[in-house]
């Protein structure tokens, strides 16, 4: 049934970072009518986003890339729809955008969608991770970018991966070195990976600069160590840290920034589809490749859309994408946690798992331990895991992992189906008269 839509175009691109802008420009270059939707008030994505009125902290290469991409938008007169949050695709095949400026949901009839919603941080559950004063390292980094200063108090940075080092360096730059940088991996010992990664000059250069800055500020870099618990201790937080030999120590701080790597921001998004509306993904949302892979992958996604629209299948080949894939694999090896991943078996039962609904690891294990072999959807509905405001965005992976550890026979599958709205949306916006309905 073809319901009328408010916006009609050939391709709707979701996400105004490097991958989305590059896809939009490439599609326009091919003569397609393109709409570009960005949830924030400005384009740029995680990498190119800058606080207004400041000079960029990105590299000269990054600035050149962004100038090139935005020039493309201007050349093809693509006016991005800012503050438009993508809600999903409905059963009539309509793309839904929550226009936060106008306070209404707009429907889009597009022959193809390019989803380029970037990456999100992976945060592993830990006892105390739900406490006030605990935030994600990426969230804190964004706060630093947007306000130009660090929040008050002592900050501990913990988890896994290069972003934590970058955050520590940013804090040093602002004169507020973290009390400790706790890293599950041991990149200093992983020489093989470090040497091979040197063939990707951009990556190693940045990391080395960050490390030098952090080291000179006297921040202890605890490698092969993990945060096992965060507890409130008066007005402060007490962080328990275990080293690779099982020794433990406690460090106090006012704020804890956690980060365990990044993953595609694909939660609840419509599945990739070769039938109309065609759905393809681009950039970190498809595969985490970082900023250097994003532009190339956006172009590849656009070409894939054009091929599908003309009825031919196209094998996506982009040399830069392959190169960045190798770089990411090396980074992962460099930062590989010293301890084997144990499917979250180590988590104590009282650990809060679903923060929206306050459900714990123990409650999940108890549900799975019964004689009736219940499945994941039953766990979700009856245990309320992933039933809160975030609909599982922050706990679905951990719920799946703990469930599988407890019951290896469970059929692996998503905790949630891809349904719209993928984000909470104001009822007023959904109920607003739809101009296309003639109301």
């Amino acid at each position: 049934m073809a319901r009328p839509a408010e916006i009609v175009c050939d391709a709707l691109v979701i996400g105004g970072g490097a991958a989305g802008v590059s896809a939009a420009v490439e599609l326009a270059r091919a003569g397609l009518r393109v709409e570009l939707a960005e949830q924030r008030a400005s384009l740029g994505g995680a990498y190119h986003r800058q606080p207004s009125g400041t000079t960029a902290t990105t590299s000269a290469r990054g600035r050149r890339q962004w100038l090139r991409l935005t020039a493309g938008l201007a050349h093809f007169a693509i006016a991005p729809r800012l503050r438009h949050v993508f809600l999903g695709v409905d059963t009539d095949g309509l793309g839904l955008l929550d226009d936060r400026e106008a306070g209404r949901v707009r429907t889009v009839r597009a022959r193809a969608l390019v989803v380029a919603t970037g990456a999100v941080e992976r945060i592993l559950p830990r006892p105390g991770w739900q406490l006030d004063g605990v935030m994600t390292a990426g969230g804190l980094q964004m706060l630093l970018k947007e306000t130009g200063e660090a929040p008050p108090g002592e900050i501990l940075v913990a988890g896994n991966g290069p972003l934590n080092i970058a955050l520590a360096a940013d804090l040093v730059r602002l004169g507020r070195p973290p009390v400790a940088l706790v890293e599950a991996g041991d990149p200093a010992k992983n020489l093989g990976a470090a040497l091979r990664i040197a063939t990707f000059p951009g990556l190693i250069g940045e990391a080395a600069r960050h490390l030098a800055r952090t080291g000179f500020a006297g921040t202890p870099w605890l490698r092969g160590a993990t945060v096992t618990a965060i507890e409130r201790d008066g007005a402060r937080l007490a962080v328990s840290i275990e080293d690779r030999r099982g020794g433990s120590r406690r460090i106090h701080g006012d704020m804890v920034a956690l980060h365990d790597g990044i993953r595609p921001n694909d939660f609840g998004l419509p599945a990739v589809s070769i039938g109309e509306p065609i759905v393809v993904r681009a950039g970190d949302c498809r595969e985490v490749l970082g900023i250097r892979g994003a532009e190339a992958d956006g172009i590849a996604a656009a070409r894939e859309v054009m091929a599908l629209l003309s009825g031919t299948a196209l094998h996506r080949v982009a040399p830069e994408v392959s190169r960045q894939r190798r770089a990411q694999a090396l980074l992962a090896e460099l930062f590989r946690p010293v301890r084997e991943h144990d499917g979250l078996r180590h988590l104590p039962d009282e650990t809060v798992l679903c923060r929206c609904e306050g459900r714990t690891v123990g409650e999940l294990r108890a549900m799975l331990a019964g004689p009736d072999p219940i499945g994941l959807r039953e766990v979700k509905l009856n245990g309320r895991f992933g039933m809160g405001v975030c609909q599982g965005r922050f706990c679905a992976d951990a719920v799946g992992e703990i469930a599988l550890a407890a019951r290896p026979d469970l059929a692996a599958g998503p905790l949630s189906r891809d349904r719209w709205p993928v984000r909470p949306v104001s009822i007023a916006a959904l109920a607003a008269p739809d101009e296309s309905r003639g109301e």
Partner: protein
Amino acid sequence: MAGIIGGKSVVVVGAGIVGAATTYFLSKRGFHVRLIEASAPASAASGAADGAVSVASKRPGPMMTAALRGIALYRELEREGLFAGLFKSRPTVMVAENDSEVESLLGHAAALAGEGMRLRHLEGDALRRRLPGVAPHVRLAVEVFDEGHAIGYEIVRRFIAASGVPVERDSPVTGLAANDAGTSVAAALTAGGAVEADHFVVAAGGGSAALLGLSEAMRPRKGQLVVTERAPALAASLPGSLMSCRYLLSKDAIRTAGEASGRRFGLVIDPLRTGQFLIGGTREDRDDTGNDHDAVGRLLAGAVRLMPALARLRAIRAFAGVRTAIRDGLPIVGRVPGFDNLFAAAGFEGDGICLGPLMGREVSRLVGGEAADLDIAPFAPGRFERRNLVA
């Protein structure tokens, strides 16, 4: 077959609320039950229902009688502890927004009162005091007491856990095999082989059509619903579920202007125990479980018109379920003619949560060789011509 029942075996097909209840009551009677489910418990209509345990929307007749008994059983099982914490007792408040709705509501209230339902009319100041969140244009409210709400998948889980019967998941029953004489069902056929038993109960919702040869009589009726974020104060301001009179019209299959597509809109705003609101629903002649912006937008526009403060909340989830409707609007409950050991309970359309436990108990009586405790003659499976029953 009557007499000794201990140790007799029953296959129940379908782990929705009706099959789960049947399993529970049969187990209590000492039957050995195998509960065979095509996918997972409460995975169809029972898991996507609005949860109304309600008489308010029924017309006098067999369905109203059954609904009254259904609510009584919920209260009984709550007292016994089986439904502890799962049944929320609350009134249903039916509201009329214009002249024709007032007329229809007054008539309906009179019919409900005539059947002995406790209710009261609310107008003017009394209406504003009782329902402070309801829009000023609402003309008349009728508060129907002694109703309730239960979440289908929670009831299903409770029944199954209490029965101690493991659910045989992902195991569609593809057919029923008769014995040589053709007088009894010998086995239920699954991919894992034929499952023999003394008795068979088909409670498979829409999946019952093929097994019972009733495809002509059964049809899917999709309903879309929306869940909001928590808003405990606003939810507490509603004494019970708010039901637009349009719901009655929707049930009567009167089509809204411009909806030639077989899509009708009812409107129920239900404050849940969690402080969230459940807002439903559509009645559509289709069997997919997706949501479309048009339907969700219209539903929510209606909800905001009735209760303006809802506009400030966010919707966190939309979902849809497919009810199984029967051509004449009545479910199918009873022994299937031609077979002495085959029983059916399906086709409750939007009333499965209210009637499921009751009908499960009734079927368990039939299987046990007793007479039903309720007049189920109007629901007799034999009232339709059947095709292709039993392999």
